[in-house]
């Protein structure tokens, strides 16, 4: 690990996905605590995910909803 920022970057996706082990989380957070550059980038990534989710949130057209309901199999 000669470049802690490069390592921190590698840890970013799994960190935000909550799949790191406890030790890995501690190590990542220790670096983040002392490196504002990485901290900003982590924050940006977090915001970006929320933003992407909002931007892609499309409501289903009401007409389609009705069509789906009409596909139900009538009771005999």
């Amino acid at each position, binding site marked *: 690990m000669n470049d802690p920022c490069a390592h921190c*970057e*590698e840890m*970013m*996706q799994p960190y935000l*996905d909550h*799949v790191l082990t406890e030790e890995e989380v501690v190590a990542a957070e220790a670096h983040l605590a002392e490196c504002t550059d990485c901290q*900003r*980038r982590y*924050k*940006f*990534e*977090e*915001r*970006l*995910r929320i*933003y*992407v*989710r909002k*931007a*892609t*949130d*499309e*409501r*289903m*057209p009401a007409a*389609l*909803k009705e*069509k*789906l*309901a009409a*596909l*139900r*199999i009538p*009771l005999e």
Partner: protein
Amino acid sequence: MAHAGTVDRVDAEPEEPQRLAAEARDRVRFEEEALALADQVYRVARHIARDDADELVQETYARAFRSWRSFQPGTNMRAWLLRILTNLNIDRGRRQQRAPQMQPLEANDYFLYDKLAESGDGVSDEDKVVERLSQDDIVSALSAVPHDFRDVLVLVDLGDFSYADAAQILDIPVGTVMSRLHRGRRILKRELADAALEEAT
């Protein structure tokens, strides 16, 4: 009803209407539960199949209603529905136009932030930097991500599925989900960086 059959074997028949009524109830419950998930199914479908989403969602529900008995109560119905949907999508050959191999310029994970931050008068507040991207930028950047990567990205990042659920839905190993997800996110960010830079000039 346990005593009903013990008196006389022939009276198996009167039980039939009851069995049918119970089954009808189960089916109605199934259908209602499935319809309640339609918004979430549509949301994922819209970004997996774009303009074909309406049709694909209808086919999915038609099939789900027909084969409701193969759904195991207590398991994840949203995942079950999306498995039908992604299989139908493959059957329809929509994925034939497999994207060409991506060039190795996916950039790294910090690439987008660095690009946006350097193009914006030194403002580095993360919220402001994100807001330099428009909704259109995001939707079109996402649709530019090749199918294999996008399916995983949409399921996990928009659909909130776990790696394991996405693996089951797409019938691929969890390791493949992870690598496609990470690569897909990088490709998305590269596309977003391109869009943002175009607007800036």
